[in-house]
């Protein structure tokens, strides 16, 4: 029964933009972190509410004193949980940083109101600019250089990794990786005005050593360099 519920729950969490259906290493460790924190938070909530309820139900006058509540629960209990969570967070965060690595491919994502342009190696190895579609190799780490030409946007492909802002005047770096070939939905996450809701893009992960020929869809707005 419990596994069945879990399966049903997990199935309900799927979706093209879902962080709970990870398809890359960064998204996977973050999803794992989430489930761990969810279980912990659930238990703590139950514990606190049970303690509140007990305050009404009990009638003995020999309850624990200030030492238990303040030092034991307030400081001791809270601090030990926080050390655990923050430690796990820093470790996880460090693992998915874009550390220098010769095997990493570098592509560019340039945002403006309300579209994304990408520069990536095309079938012949030359850099090709596309509108709304980013082509990356599957199974290989890719560093996305993110920049903006006008206001602040954010590059986000939930199934592959967390998000990173596109800030005018700066180059930000985000490491993404798709474990399997396929199409992954991306969108801008930072509010940017009236066209914000439709500021979507796709990441196409290809298999093999060289990218397949770009399709007609890529050619729209595409420009070889």
């Amino acid at each position, binding site marked *: 029964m419990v596994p069945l519920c879990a399966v049903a729950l997990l199935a309900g969490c799927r979706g093209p933009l879902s962080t709970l259906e990870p398809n890359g290493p960064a998204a996977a460790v973050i999803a794992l972190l989430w489930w761990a924190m969810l279980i912990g938070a659930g238990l703590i909530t139950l514990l606190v509410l049970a303690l509140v309820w007990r305050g009404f139900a009990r009638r003995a006058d020999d309850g624990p004193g200030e030492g238990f509540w303040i030092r034991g629960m307030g400081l001791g209990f809270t601090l030990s949980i926080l050390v655990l*969570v923050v430690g796990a967070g820093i470790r996880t965060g460090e693992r998915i940083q874009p550390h220098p690595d010769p095997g990493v491919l570098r592509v560019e994502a340039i945002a403006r109101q309300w579209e994304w342009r990408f520069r990536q190696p095309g079938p012949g190895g030359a850099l090709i600019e596309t509108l709304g579609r980013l082509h990356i190799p599957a199974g290989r780490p890719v560093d996305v250089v993110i920049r903006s030409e006008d206001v602040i946007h954010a590059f986000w492909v939930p199934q592959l990794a967390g998000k990173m802002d596109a800030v005018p005047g700066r180059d930000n770096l985000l490491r993404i990786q798709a474990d399997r070939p396929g199409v992954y939905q991306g969108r801008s996450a930072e509010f940017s005005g009236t066209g914000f809701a439709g500021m979507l893009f796709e990441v196409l992960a290809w298999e093999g050593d060289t990218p397949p020929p770009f399709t007609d869809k890529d050619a729209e707005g595409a420009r070889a360099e």
Partner: protein
Amino acid sequence: MTPPQPNLPQSALKLHRELDRVWGRPPGLRGILISVNHSELGLRFMIAAFVFFAIAGCLAMLIRAQLATPAGAFLDVGLYNQFFTMHGSLMMFMFAVPLLEGLGMYLLPKMLGSRDLAFPRLSAFGWWCYFFGGLILLTALAAGVAPDGGWFMYTPLSSKAYSPGINADVWLLGITFVEISAVAAAVEITVTILRMRAPGMKLTQMPLFAWYMLGTAAMMLVGFPPLILASVLLELERAFDWPFFDVTRGGDPMLWQHLFWLFGHPEVYIIFLPAAGAISTILPVMARTEILGYGAIVAAILGLVFLSFGLWVHHMFTTGIPHMALAFFSAASALVAVPTAVQIFAWIGTLWKGRPEMHLPMLHLMGFFSTFVMGGLTGVMLAIVPFNWQAHDTAFVTAHLHYVLIGGFVFPMMAAAVYWMPLFTGKAAVRGPGVMAFWLILIGFHGTFFLMHLTGLMGMARRISTYPDNPEWIWLNLSSSFFSFIMAAGFALFALDLILQWLFGAKSRRNPWGAKTLEWAMLMPAPGYNIASLPLPGQAALQIARGEGALPGAPRDRRETLVVDALSGEARHVAVLPSNSALPILSAAVIGGFVLLMLSSFYVAAGCWLFAVAAVFWQWQRWMGSAQGEDLIPAAPGLYLPVHHEVPDSLARSGLICLLIANGALFGCFLFSLGFLSVIAPNWPAPQSALPAEPALLLSLGLALCLVLSSLLARPRLGSGAGPALIILILALGAVIGLALILEDPTAHARNALRAAALGYIALHCVIAALLAGLCRVQRRDGRMAANRPGAAPVWRLWQDYTTVTALLLIATVGLQEGLS
């Protein structure tokens, strides 16, 4: 010191009549416009805040209606953007902050045993600024030109290039106008708590609510200036093209984010602390016991005040700041959960210790526990950097912040409203409708926001208006929208219940909850003067009403109350508080005129209008100072105290110190901006300076010399140097104008714009210093200064020294910049 002896008992009715005459206000509209009474103004703040809650709540309903279906055509995008921006802005600035100010203003003098707040006219001035500012925002909303860039107004989206209309100006000018009332309330509350307690009440004997409000007020003094500075800088950029945030000309949009969140995160605790203060007050009463861990709670408050200024960056985890820096802010953000947890467990321990009874206020506190704990836990999750990279800017954050704000603020405030309602109105509550309202709100709330966490994790970004490609979110959004209407019905019933209680409720008995705090020693509803005499240690309601405490009645026909030593609570002097006045509303109106001129882009007229502002504020001094000496006032047998004209450490001086702390925070943020842009912003170093070296050096040295001389002249007693200082300050202003003339074009680069802003800051402070020096001249002429009556001299001296020090720092900074380049 031995405690003062009680006065002889008198007729309570006679005292009431005497006090009512002195502390009352004329009936009708005129009385409403000129009233300065803290109870009336506090109630007005609270009622207006609830009105804004209703308006912003209606906007939320419109937002939920739009999101109920994936391709909602209910609102067009432009309107939708205005509505969510205004929903957030109104809830933060027009509901939450004014509500806590109102509650503090209403309760503090009563709990501490004082007759009013420290600066009654300032309370009224703050109220009218809030009122007029709110009118401007609502007019913009009705006219369809409301702000639409999101409540945190990120640049460059809110800059002129991407928001050409007046929408953003409405936010920057309107909210800043309203913030005057927040700073005024912060000054007021700090001074009242530190210096207007009942004689003999040590800091460590204060009711916990006062500790919470002291922490809140301190945070407001330091937390609002970054927002005010950011708003002024952005408005200068929009109005005059000074590029503080334009990255192509040496500005940086990240500067806005730092300044905004330097305000924005403490703001969360500014909102939470008073609510927690209400819990710490109400929960022990409902549990028929004393609070557990008074000392630990005070330590937790101080810890929160301190920590909350060290974690603003956790709103900026996805902006590209190096991970190790983020790790520091992550740890600091998590650490803030410790003082919060200490309070939660202290409250639970209090429940265990006592015999809790489930009255309506307690029910709302249960709403708090069942909501806020989850909000706190999702807050810890969001403080974890990698998780934040996924959850940031999604519906998960929307859900989290509503769990924290409704759980941590609205539920405790509802508890506070029903708990203190008998004191506000004198009427007793009916149980039924309030309980039903509670359950509707609780069920509606969790129904709306619990699954919204999942909506966010499934990829729904904040602030999108349609989602045609994501059918997997439909059922989540539809259920959120459905339950949000249940919650709205609950709030409507809650409001209706309070209104009915106020209009038709049975008369409440005195102290209906059996509480031990002083506010319940008053008549219900509380009269304008609060208490017939100021309670001495150990005195009960009856003795206070019969005038056995200090300063019974109003025998000298003026509004008198006691001022004490900040730490020990020993009575120091008698403050005569100002009576009803039209100046507060006039002053707020004249500032409102300035705001409207700025909004209409009549910048020259706005500049000239400043003379009208100065002229109106000059009128405030007419009531100050006294031309005659006065004997010591007998406050109680053996306790003879001087009146405030004759002491050096008057309330005015304490108030100015608070204001200068806020001003110093603003100045510090300005220096931070200068440093941030020169070190972090791209497009620095600035182009080679073309400032003519010799005139610049000469004028700067001249300015520095003038200010140092003015500070020296402010030192002799009784403002005898005021005349010469006035001339020297005018020379200083001449030097500022000279510097402004040789300054390079402020629109060319942020460096020049920063220098222009610095000159403006110096000029403003010199003008105020000159006005204060002029005031000393006038007071000397009128005999309002004498050997033991210092008049405005101590205030001028403080302001003068602040002006000199900040100006010297700015001159040195620019000199350093020039020397280095």
